[in-house]
């Protein structure tokens, strides 16, 4: 059964976030490329330990905000040229009056882009993931913090296993992909 799938990752379970962060640092220092962790809540210091430098979410938010704000403003300008409404002695292009909607659409564009980018880059939603097959994987537990060496093309189970065992984790767990049927 289990042998049927390709390896997905090798997990090492730790019982505190501090030990996980330490272990992550040690494993990164040994030059393993694809290292990640699975934790029930965000762990302070883990981003630095894993050398996380992804700025795509803030960048998407900035772009979304600019597109939303500029688009909102230009929409009002364009529609006023298309169907001029001369109201209350205001000029046709009444900039202060357009600011409210420009601001709201700036916020809307920024938030939709940020949250949308978060989902897309994280590849969510998905219905299943190999990690859910790992023994005892439970996000509601407070003493299971997993360090993961993800399997890439030159993944060596024994080398990864030795490196993780040296950190004295509570358990080492093999995670495999489910075979495609």
């Amino acid at each position, binding site marked *: 059964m289990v042998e049927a799938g390709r390896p997905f990752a090798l997990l090492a379970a730790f019982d505190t976030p501090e030990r996980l962060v330490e272990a992550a640092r040690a494993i990164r220092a040994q030059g393993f490329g694809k290292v990640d962790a699975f*934790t029930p*809540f*965000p762990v302070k210091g883990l981003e630095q330990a894993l050398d996380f430098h992804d700025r795509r979410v803030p960048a998407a938010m900035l772009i979304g905000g600019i597109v939303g704000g500029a688009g909102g403003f230009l*929409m009002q300008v364009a529609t006023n040229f298309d*169907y001029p409404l001369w109201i209350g002695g205001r000029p046709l292009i009444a900039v202060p009056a357009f600011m409210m909607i420009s601001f709201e659409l700036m916020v*809307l564009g920024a938030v*939709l882009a940020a*949250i949308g980018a978060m989902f897309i880059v994280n590849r969510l939603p998905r219905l299943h993931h190999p990690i859910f097959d790992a023994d005892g994987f439970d*996000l509601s537990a*407070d003493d299971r913090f997993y360090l993961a060496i993800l399997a890439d093309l030159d993944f060596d189970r024994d080398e990864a296993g030795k490196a993780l065992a040296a950190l004295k984790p509570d358990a080492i767990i093999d995670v495999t992909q489910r075979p495609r049927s």
Partner: protein
Amino acid sequence: MSRDLAAADRVLRLPPRFPAPRAWWICFGFALSLLAVFFVSVAWLFGHGPGIWGNNIPVGWGFPISNYVWWLGIGHAGTLISAMLLLMGQDWRNSLNRFAEAMTLFAVTCAGLYPVLHLGRPWLFYWMAPYFNTMDIWPQFKSPLTWDFFAVLTYLIVSTLFWYIGIIPDLAAARDRARKRRWKMFFGLGALGWRGQATHWARWQQAYRLTAAIAVPLVVSVHSEISLLFAAGPVPGWVSTVFPPYFVMGAAFSGFAVVSMLTVWLRWMLDLHTLVTLRHLNMLGYLLLATGMMTAYGYAAEMFTAAYAGGKEAETLFDRFSGPYAWSYWGAIAFNFLPLQLLWWRRWRQWPITLFLIGLSVTIGMWMERYMLLVSSLYRDWLESSTGYFHPTFWDWGVFAGTIGLFLTLFLLFVRFLPIISAFEVREEAVDG
């Protein structure tokens, strides 16, 4: 520390093993009966038109718009508690933010329904949106009514998303905690496959914090915008530059009042004493007192500017003191600011019953304020001919009670089926110590 962890675990188990089914059913039955009133009133409205209500020229707005402002204001407190306190690193918010945000969603839903119901031809509400149409026309973008459409729609979408990405990690934990298959399916679908990967958390935190940062100015802009519905009109009692901050403060005040009531109620019904401690009640008392005194300052500023302006403005001010709607002015002052003064003492802040009753009093007082601002300005303006009294009818009260039923129904469903406290943030805090 471990006490908090155990309490957070209990939050995740609340839906499958609900501790107070009887109290919940009693509340839910009450909510459903009010919801029935809502459906009957709205059906009657659709059949007979807004003529069944008391609003008519000159008081064309009446209940629908004053209740709309009231509901929307209540909603703002959830975003403020959640987003503003998150950015300021106030971790005690973790016990309150989830259900406060849920309150926001449901209050904004009730608010959003009112202008649509008020349209007369509610099925044409989408005419507010700019879309290419065979009539070859566009919305009037220089009108606060159009700003309003964009503000409320943006606010509803942003607060829904903020609440939802905030609850995803807890749905995932509840999925893993659940034993029965149907709960696993329910939470699992909601959790969208969340697996707590460190890189996911990092991006999640970026998105969550940035959304919080932009949600705070959004709240201020939305309620300022609502105040411009009034302040941009040349009506004595409305056309005043003090309105935007005055409305925002009043909104936060009324919202904190409702959050206080909900907190006391949930704490009692679900025995959440470990997570919602006396410190939280104390903090809510402070928030209520602070925003209340700011609102009181708004009253004073508004009074001063009207008296300083003189003429019709001052006349409207004095009419509020002693005219036919004086009950709403003095009622607002009494309900908003008199019981509030008890909160200067720690003893009263930390006593759940007083906090609940003061919250109730403020909720009523702020409702009177919205009513007073709207009706006492509209019923007589510059021309003698445009004078006419407003009297709410049975159906006015029916729709109003109905929206309360809608709010309670949605909120009770949330309490019954979802993690009502941000368990993962409580755990993060407990472990960080």
